């Protein structure tokens, strides 16, 4: 995902002279090519997130399209108030890019996990929140972020995420979920790096005779209420999948739509149960700790489906 990101930003920088990339001293082995090709539009601001976001705001006031890249918790929470005042209050089109969504950084520990970032970015007026589900969505996100009038937060993992959309030229627009598979009775709505897990969970449910709908809800804000309504017409059980606290993320966004529109659907939220990782562990291990393993989610859904 990081490679898809930098490739897309590099292409943009080739096309447009106003594209800048700032990093908070993160992105070793990822950003070097950009630095070499665009030395006047690449700045390693150092370990100074508040200064970095403020600088991005100043550049944006001067008409620049600025991508701000660092590890997700530091991009969103260390400098939260700069994001709020300098970017959101001023409606500046700065793209905040957080690396290491959820528990991507595994054994590094919870300082490096981003489990609150979607929540804290969602509550900011005017902030768009995008968690691309695969490298193709990532590339589209970068390309289309340029036309946003206000700030956005782009959440990405690290490297090696699988390509989920098999064909290029996916039908992608910010704020519109993508239906990967149409289904009935049960829908899996995933964001970010849980999209591959949703696909695997859907495959497991298929083996049990179900026909799940699979949706990539890459944009958590604004949430695609229309698609949720449509899906609820086919699926009485909606499951949300996110590597994020169960409070404040995709599940709550979808749940809000279900309640507000009075949709006839039951919601099952998969996410991190309001806790920091209690032990060291790799991403897969921690996912299991939080009930985010494919087997665990499949079992839970089968249980709910059997209640009907």
């Amino acid at each position: 995902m990081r490679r898809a990101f930098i490739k897309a930003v590099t292409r943009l920088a080739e096309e447009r002279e106003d594209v800048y990339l700032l990093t908070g001293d993160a992105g070793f082995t990822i950003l070097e090519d950009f630095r070499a090709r665009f030395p006047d539009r690449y700045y390693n601001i150092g370990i100074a997130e508040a200064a970095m976001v403020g600088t991005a705001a100043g550049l944006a006031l001067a008409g620049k399209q600025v991508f701000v890249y660092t590890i997700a918790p530091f991009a969103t929470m260390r400098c939260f108030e700069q994001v709020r005042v300098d970017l959101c209050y001023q409606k500046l089109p700065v793209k905040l890019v957080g690396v290491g969504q959820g528990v991507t950084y595994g054994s590094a520990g919870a300082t490096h996990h981003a489990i609150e970032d979607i929540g804290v970015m969602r509550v900011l007026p005017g902030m768009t929140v995008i968690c691309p589900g695969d490298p193709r969505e990532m590339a589209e996100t970068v390309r289309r972020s340029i036309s946003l009038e206000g700030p956005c937060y782009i959440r990405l993992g690290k490297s090696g995420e699988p390509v989920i959309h098999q064909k290029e030229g996916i039908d992608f627009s910010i704020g519109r979920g993508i239906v990967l598979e149409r289904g009935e009775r049960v829908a899996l709505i995933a964001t970010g790096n849980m999209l591959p897990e949703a696909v695997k969970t859907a495959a497991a449910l298929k083996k049990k005779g179900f026909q799940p709908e699979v949706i990539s809800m890459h944009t958590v804000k604004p949430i695609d209420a229309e698609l949720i309504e449509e899906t609820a017409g086919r699926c009485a059980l909606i499951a949300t999948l996110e590597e994020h606290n169960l409070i404040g993320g995709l599940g709550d966004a979808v749940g809000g739509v279900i309640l507000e529109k009075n949709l006839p659907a039951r919601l099952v939220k998969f996410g991190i149960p309001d806790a920091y990782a209690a032990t060291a562990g790799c991403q897969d291990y921690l996912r299991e700790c939080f009930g985010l393993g494919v087997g665990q989610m499949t079992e839970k859904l089968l249980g709910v489906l059997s209640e009907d």
Partner: protein
Amino acid sequence: MDSTDQLRETSRRIRKHLVRMHRRGSHFGSAMSIADILTVLFFRVMNIPSPGDPDRDRFILSKGHAASALYATLATKKFFDESVLERYLHDGECLYGHPVAKSLPGVEVSSGSLGHGLAIGVGLALAAKNDGKSYRVFVLMGDGEIQEGSVWETAILADRLRLDNLIAIIDANNLQGFDRVENIQPISTFRRKWEAFGWGVEEVDGHDHAALLEAFGRVPFRPGAPSVIVARTVKGKGVAEMEGRFESHYLSVPADRVEDWLREIDEKS
């Protein structure tokens, strides 16, 4: 009138606006404190042919709580009608207690949370350099404000980027929310701190127009380095019973004092 007489007349006009405006709201003292700095900047130092000119010098009021002084200056500069000032803090109007970018001609940046303006100034100054533009960026901060860590993150950055088109001004009135600044976080080493961070530093009397002009005329103080002017000021300057009182951070102008204070400002040279 010679040049400094005109400036004195301008700052009197701004201060009188402030007395009338501050029948509402707080931060009267904070605004009076910077009236001379703004006068010199907007009427002599900065090049702003019009608020929308792409090559204009940029001004960032980082100590956003003195917004009224910015509004009064911009109105005196005729960027908008002076009658607009009567709507300061009124319901449904755009004269907020802390400035909002583009709410009025000449208001460049939203501020109010301290410690933000300098980094925004760095971004603007960096864009000017890269775009080959000659505009300069002026950022006015409070002396309490520079207790914010983000100021020092940015101080390091501006030095490294060699932004000699960035000029910070510290309104050093030595008063903040609870007490004298020096009793809360000692600031006696302003000069040494900024110099240690690579900046060129000058200290001036922030109410002496000639001294301010002279200092602004010499920036950058060090070749290739950002500059900071430590302007020694008096909170509430212009109204004797408010001068040097930290309460002037909070108090509104009492309705029955307005005429007396206007007269006092007029009578002062």
